[in-house]
Each structure stands twice: as structure tokens, then as C-alpha cells.
């Protein structure tokens, strides 16, 4: 029996007159890199927001690591073990890169206000540990030299890496990345792919929303394709790529002949 990290089923979400998600589900095996793709407006980010607790679904069952969880409070989802990045990068702009990652350590550490005020030995040691681990993570994603730079002064690509480092700091069971390659040039994308593969090798499961087809095909073990809030295909990238419904969703009807020829 496969080791399933995330099992979600039957998610429905309506916004007024729009059915954003209809009976969407996903099953991610530990160590996989799983892709969530689909045309703009298909509901990918909405689904992300639902499983991480930012939106409350109209229905759905959610299980992380075999334990059911209710995605009602965002911070509890993070505590349970899903860490995410955002489509529009949400760093803490005036804090340094190092401080950003140190905030990521918050959820796995325990120092209290009293400990801070009294400077207990436990607190001091924990602080040291937080700083050390955060520097390690910055090194891991390749931006160690910007540790003391304000987050908003980093280049776009480096900001994305920082967001990933911060998410990793929470020791997640599932790393959920929302369009991590958006806005990157080809070189940056190659580097990102290397990073994601390294993360996967370190046994962290990744769920990723991405538009760059080449990246998804090369990186993901399996994908789910969404269109208008419904799942239209699930499987390995190669199968999904030649799926007629998928081609139609991306390119519109009438392109079938051209697409199959290219594939």
C-alpha cells in the first residue's frame, strides 16, 4: 500500500455564481513531485487555498499523513505539516532574508515571551539553533550571501528561493509551491529545477502549480489537470500530454490535429 502523504477528495467551492471547484481530489505519494496544471482560471490556486486553509470549502475530505485534518485555520495546517509559497510572492519585505527564514522556524520551536525576557538557557540555545538552521537553509537554496539583505532588495528569482527556504524551515511533510517558476528566465528555471529535485531527493514531497509545460514534464512524477474547476486528467505527464481533453482545454477545439502531430 503506497505511503500517501496527502489525500483529498470531493472538494467543492462556490464563489457566488461561480463554481470554482467541482469534486476535485488528489492523492500524493510520499517523495513524489506532483504537478497541478491547467489553463488560467482553472481553479489551481483556489484548490491550493482550500487545502491550506485560506478558503473554506463547501465540501471535501482531507487527510495528511493518514490523519484527517480540517483546513479551517491556516496556521494549524502549517503546524500539521503543509508549507506553501504564494503565486505573488509573500515575503516579509522589510525583514532580512535570514529573518524571513527564522520566522519559518517559529512553528517548530517553543520559546515563550517569558523565556525571552529572562534569557533562560533553553531560550538562548533555541535561538542559536534557529539561526544556524536558517543559515543552512539559505545555503541550501543558494542565497546564503544575501542573509543580511532586506528581502525586498533581492532579485525576483532569489526572492522565490527565499520563499522556498522559509517554507522548508517549517519542516513540512508537503511543500506546496504556487507557480515557483513564474517570471523566471530559462537559466533561473534550470536552477529551480535542480533545487526542487534536490528537495525531492531529501524525501520532501512536493505539490506544485506550474504553467511551464517543459518544467512540469521534466520534473513531475504525476500530474492532475484542472479545467473550469473540474479534473480532466490524472496521471504521468507523458500520458496526460497526449490526452485529447487536455489539449482541447489548453488550445481550444480544432487544434487536435496539429497537437498530435507535434507529440
Amino acid at each position, binding site marked *: 500500500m503506497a505511503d500517501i502523504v496527502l489525500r483529498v477528495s470531493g472538494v467543492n467551492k462556490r464563489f457566488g455564481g461561480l463554481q470554482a471547484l467541482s469534486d476535485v481530489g488528489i492523492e500524493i505519494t510520499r517523495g513524489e513531485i506532483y504537478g497541478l496544471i491547467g489553463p488560467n482560471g482553472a481553479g489551481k490556486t483556489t484548490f491550493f487555498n482550500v487545502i*491550506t486553509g*485560506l478558503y473554506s470549502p463547501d465540501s471535501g475530505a482531507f487527510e495528511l499523513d493518514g490523519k484527517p485534518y480540517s483546513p479551517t485555520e*491556516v*496556521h494549524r495546517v*502549517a*503546524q500539521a505539516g503543509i*508549507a*506553501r509559497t*504564494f503565486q*505573488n*510572492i*509573500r*515575503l*516579509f*519585505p*522589510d*525583514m*532580512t532574508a535570514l*529573518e524571513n527564514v*527564522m*520566522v*519559518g*522556524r*517559529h*512553528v517548530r*520551536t517553543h*520559546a*515563550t*515571551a517569558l*523565556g*525571552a*525576557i529572562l*534569557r533562560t538557557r533553553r*531560550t538562548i540555545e*533555541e*535561538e542559536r539553533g*534557529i539561526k544556524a538552521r536558517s543559515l543552512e537553509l539559505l545555503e541550501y537554496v543558494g542565497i546564503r550571501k*544575501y542573509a*543580511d*539583505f*532586506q*528581502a*525586498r*532588495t*533581492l*532579485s*525576483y528569482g*532569489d*526572492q522565490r528561493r527565499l520563499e522556498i527556504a*522559509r*517554507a522548508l524551515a*517549517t519542516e513540512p511533510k508537503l511543500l506546496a509551491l504556487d507557480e515557483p517558476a513564474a*517570471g523566471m528566465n530559462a537559466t533561473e528555471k534550470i536552477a529551480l529545477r535542480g533545487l526542487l529535485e534536490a528537495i525531492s531527493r531529501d524525501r520532501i514531497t512536493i505539490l506544485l502549480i506550474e504553467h511551464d509545460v517543459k518544467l512540469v514534464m521534466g520534473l513531475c512524477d504525476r500530474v492532475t489537470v484542472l479545467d473550469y474547476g473540474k479534473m480532466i486528467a490524472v496521471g504521468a505527464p507523458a500520458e496526460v500530454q497526449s490526452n485529447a481533453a487536455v489539449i482541447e482545454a489548453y488550445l481550444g477545439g480544432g487544434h487536435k490535429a496539429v497537437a498530435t502531430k507535434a507529440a
Partner: protein
Amino acid sequence: MGSLLPRLSQSRSAVWIATALIGIVLILLPFAFGMLGNAWVRALAFACLYVMLALGLNIVVGFAGLLDLGYIAFYAVGAYMYALLASPHLTSTFPWIAQMFPNGLHNSIWLVIPLGAGLAALFGIVLGAPVLKLRGDYLAIVTLGFGEIIRIFLNNLNAPVNITNGPQGITLIDPISFGNVSLAKTQHFLGITFPSVHLYYYLFLVLTLITIVICVRLQDSRLGRAWMAIREDEIAAKAMGINVRNVKLLAFSLGATFGGVSGAMFSAFQGFVSPESFTLNESIIVLAMVVLGGLGHIPGVVLGAVLLAIFPEVLRHTVTPVQTFLFGHVVIDAEVLRMMLYGLAMVLIMLYRPKGLWPAPEHGVNPSSRAAPRGA
């Protein structure tokens, strides 16, 4: 964050010498000012209380980014708590209390400080809990409302049961004393005469220094980072597992404790409290201190508090004689002028120097060779 310290600690002996020098200046200050008049030393003592208030509000507004316009309510809570526990009011109003405490109600400072802190923290939680999910503007108005509600209650809880003695306030409040040493009397130490106001100044100075240390330690801690994260991007903070609600509540109640303790000290110092001392104007003055000094930056906030606390004294000594000289009488009352200038200062600072007079120095380096990043 901790910006000043790393540079200084490069030379440890420099730090010790600077600290010692500052310490000596602070100790001698009341004697110097005392030559100008007792009012100046009182101003110094009040300056210490204001620094504590400003630092407390700084935790709420500067660290956590929550605009509290009713902060003075915590000051009031501390002040009235001490007043009730250390004055003849309760014993003279309620015979059953007089029976329980035949020698009158008096309380030692060692009990009063933690009690004031605790009570204020409790109020902080009670007032904060319902409103913390509110957005900036709304939070400001609601906290303003709370501040006013507390003042109205203090003003009116004299009937049917006289708890606060209404607008007349509570008088004959005990001064602070350490054992037999009462701060209300002149004391002699090592051949030097210390008038009462000097003694209070030293006590408040110690409390202020403790406050500063606590704030610095909180700032550079896991909690301090959580506050800053919430201030910068609440949703991202939640996504990183921070229980935003509880962390905000902590900011509110920790900030409140400083208000409560300084309120109790105020009560003892003045010997008298009335609702008049806890108006919206006072909340705004403390806010002005934090904003003018440098929101979120501890040295800035201290500077702002000291400047604005001493300023009325300066005004009184310059504006009044100048006007009398020029016009034969006072055209603009110093108090009125003070408030007007505070208001103007708030506007000007926001327009031209929004980070305050002494803002936190920029974190890290702005690498000029990098292309300006999109996003974030």
C-alpha cells in the same frame, strides 16, 4: 533589529565606558535640573513614566502593527488599582472593608507592581480578544471607544456604589515606601540630601531601564519576529504556522502591563487620581511619542517620549514669559499651544519623515548593482 548593538560591541570596553558615562549623567540629572526648579525634576520623573508608556504602546503599534488609540485605559487601570488599594477611599466608603483592615489599606510596592502588571494584562486580553481580527482603521476606532468607555465608567462608578468616587477622584494615596523609607520624604544618604521628587525619579528610572531591557529582549526573540512578520504580512505569517490571534493578544497584554505598572507609579507619585488624567488626548500624546520617535525602533521611541514629555515644561518657561513680554498677557495658553504643536508635528512627520525622527537603520545593504526586483 538590534542594529545599534553589533556595531558598538565591536569594542567591549567602549560599551562599558559609554554605559558608565550615561549612567552617571542620568544619576546627576535631577540635581542639575533641580537648580532650575522642582518642576523640572518632576518633568524628568514624568518623562520616565512616559517612556514606559511609549515603549508599551510601541509593542502594540510598532512591533505588531496594531493601532491602539485607547492605550491610556491601561494606565488608568493601574493607577486606580493602586489608588483603591493604598488610600482611605475604600475603608471610608465601605465599613466592612474598614473592619477587615483596621489599620487602613496600604500596600507594599512589591505587591503593587506585579498586581498592576497582571490586572492590566488581564484588561489587555479582555479588550483585545474581541477586536483583534479587525483591520487597521477599525481597530483604531474600537480601541478608542474602549478607552472612552473606561473613562466614562471611572467617571460614573460613584453611584449606586461608590467605587471610583467619580469625577472627584481618589485622594490621599500612599506614597511608595521601601520598608521605613518613604519616597515622599526627603532622605539622606552618604551625606547627600535627596528630596522626594529625586527619589521618585530614581525609582522610575530603574523601572524604565528594566522596561527597555525587556523590550530589547522581546524584539530579538522568536516572539518579536512573529510580531514583525504579522506586521509585514499577516497571511504569510499564518501560512508559516504563527497563531496570529494569540500572538496579537500577547502584544496587547504585554504592552498593557507597562501601562499598568506606570499607572500605579503615577498614582503614588501624584497622591491623587481622577478620570481627567486619562482622556483620549493622553492616548494620542503617547501615540505621538511613538510615531515621532520612530515606530518600532526602541531608541527612537525613548527619544520621542523624552522630547514630548519635557517639551511642555520648555514651552511653559519660554512661551509664557515671551508672550507676557510682547503682549502684556498670555495670548496662547502653553497647554493649548502644546497640543496644537503635537497635532502639527504628527501631520508633518507623516508627510515628511514617516519613519520618525530616529528610525531603525536600514537592514542590510541595498545592493546597487542588482536590478530592482518585481513583486514582494
